[in-house]
């Protein structure tokens, strides 16, 4: 009896605690906030914070203020699942996040079970939206589109014969490398296909082997710390093949790690420059005055937050199912332009282009 009473008291305490929080709407942000990819996590946080500040200054949504719950998944899939559970228990109505596909995919199970929408600004692995969850959305493009563009560029523009393909064994890196290889489609020889370990610092062994096969281009599926070291060490071994990588590499730190001279001429697949988009003008000004230089994914995080919040306003509820259906039906007019989601939760159009590293900066270079 005593125990039951105590239990009841506890329950009532907890529910009082919950009720007090009901006058805000919580949205979750998840990404690598610490560790070697912390920069990407920060970009997410800044992008979402900016959107939320703008909404809050106009009175929030559904008459309530919006509050952000930031979670650090440390780009570790296990940690991602655990922070996902924590955010669901915290009562978030939707989650903007996970940067790494290897985190978003397992975490999406948790959100799906809880029935809350997940909008990822940066996970590009196709599997994420191929699982048949209707509450998973992706603002960025997919690796198969990205790999296709990279292959197209190598075949049509560079007209190369021999390439080497490396990846970092992550869902994102290997996925991208495999898609690239698939779309080369026998038109270009893959003289070497292999992997490195994420977090490793010495790649001279594998680069010496690659150099021995004399490729004209090395394609790397992975993230900027390893990409930077790969380029630097390749040049030290006087392996002077062209270097190409995906959107995970497009970060100023890549140039800093590789050294401007070594990074020069590296090709990268990425979405078009927001600076050339009229719709993104306001966002760019506000973001720069608030946080400084724009990160590659800042605009996606900002837009993901805007999508979630406008859907809440339109649906007039934070109930997961209705919210998901609303996102599927709506057309959003956001910084990236007008976008819609298809049945799987991918954006209906996702134009990837080729960027190049030039004089220590990234710029748009080629589009098909």
């Amino acid at each position: 009896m005593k125990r039951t009473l105590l239990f009841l008291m506890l329950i009532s305490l907890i529910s009082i605690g919950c009720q007090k929080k009901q006058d805000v709407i919580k949205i979750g942000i998840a990404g690598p906030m610490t560790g070697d990819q912390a920069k990407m996590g920060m970009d997410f946080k800044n992008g979402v914070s900016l959107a939320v500040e703008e909404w809050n200054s106009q009175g929030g949504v559904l008459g309530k203020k919006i509050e952000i719950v930031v979670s650090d998944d440390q780009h570790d899939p296990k940690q991602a699942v655990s922070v996902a559970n924590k955010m669901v228990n915290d009562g978030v109505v939707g989650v903007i996040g996970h940067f790494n596909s290897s985190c978003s995919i397992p975490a999406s199970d948790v959100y799906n079970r809880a029935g809350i929408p997940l909008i990822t600004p940066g996970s590009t692995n196709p599997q994420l939206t191929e699982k048949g969850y209707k509450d998973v959305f992706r603002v960025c493009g997919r690796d198969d589109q990205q790999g296709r563009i990279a292959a197209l560029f190598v075949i049509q523009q560079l007209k190369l014969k021999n390439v080497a393909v490396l990846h970092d064994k992550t869902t994102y890196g290997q996925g991208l490398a495999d898609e690239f290889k698939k779309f080369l489609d026998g038109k270009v020889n893959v003289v070497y296909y292999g992997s490195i370990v994420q977090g490793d610092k010495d790649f001279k062994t594998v680069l010496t082997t690659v150099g021995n096969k004399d490729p004209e281009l090395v394609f790397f599926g992975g993230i900027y710390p390893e990409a930077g070291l790969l380029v630097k060490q390749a040049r030290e071994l006087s392996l002077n093949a062209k270097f190409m990588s995906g959107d995970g590499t497009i970060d100023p730190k890549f140039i800093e790690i590789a050294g401007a001279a070594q990074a020069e001429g590296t090709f990268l697949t990425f979405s078009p420059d927001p600076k050339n988009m009229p719709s993104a003008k306001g966002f760019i000004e506000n973001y720069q005055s608030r946080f400084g230089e724009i990160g590659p994914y800042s605009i996606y995080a900002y837009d993901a937050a805007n999508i979630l919040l406008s859907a809440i306003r339109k649906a007039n509820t934070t109930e997961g199912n209705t919210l998901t259906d609303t996102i599927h039906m709506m057309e959003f007019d956001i910084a990236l332009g007008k976008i819609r989601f298809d049945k799987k939760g991918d954006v209906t159009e996702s134009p990837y282009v080729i960027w190049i590293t030039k004089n220590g900066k990234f710029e748009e270079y080629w589009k098909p």
Partner: protein
Amino acid sequence: MFLQQLINGLTLGSVYALIALGYSMVYGILELINFAHGEIYMLGAYFGIIFFGLFTAIGLTAFSLPLALALTFVLSIMFCASYGFTIEKIAYKPLRNAPRLSPLISAIGVSIFLQNFVMLTQGATDKVFPPLFGTAGFRFLSVQMTYLQLSIIVVSVILMVCLRFFVRKTRMGKAMRAVAQDKVMASLVGINIDTVISVTFLIGSGLAAIAGLMVAMYYGLVNYFIGYVAGIKAFTAAVLGGIGSIRGAMLGGILLGLVESLGGSYISSEYKDAYAFILLIIVLLVKPGGLFGKAELEKV
């Protein structure tokens, strides 16, 4: 290609060897596996970046690069040595007569503390050591080598030769060997054990600082958890060579580097880390004391 991989492995191995020496020396004397040693190496890299940044800011680098680099090295070594010294006094000395497991757990605690301390004070993001020499190097017999790579190998070899000379020929070295053999007897003949242990920590930490700084310059990328991986590798090297033996630590380190690089190139680079540990298992099965373990009388 074989020669090139040999050089790649040798560079990697020299660094492992320098760190492994610290593990082996401490184990030889205290029979303690100092898990915080990898963190001293990480601190060496951080001190390097901090002091070099400082010298660049006050214009010393522009005035004379060699002077700035030399000062950076000296200061990093001094700071790391004092860290090593303090860690021993705070975390290990009070436990000297405790069961063997206690100082080991204390060492793991220090390691976790230092990692988090650096993460919180320096931030979790990668720090970049300014590229000083670019990719400058030379070609010799189909081997492409940077000057930095060459200096890592040369500096490591010189340091190891000096250490061997110190342990074998000097009075302090003799005292260290005596303490390693029998602490009680050594104190009975008038050797101050505390001093010997402190000197061991100072030297081991100084070597780790040099390794850390050279690696920071070579790869150009430093973060708070580099000590963990390097520590595990160096520990493996020390065990491979026979923990407690100086010669074993040197050869174990270089062997480890070579196996990683040659295995990575001739079998498959995906399982690079596995080769080192397969080798370790084989050696321990055949010769449980490590390559130079029991057979070596001179144990420090």
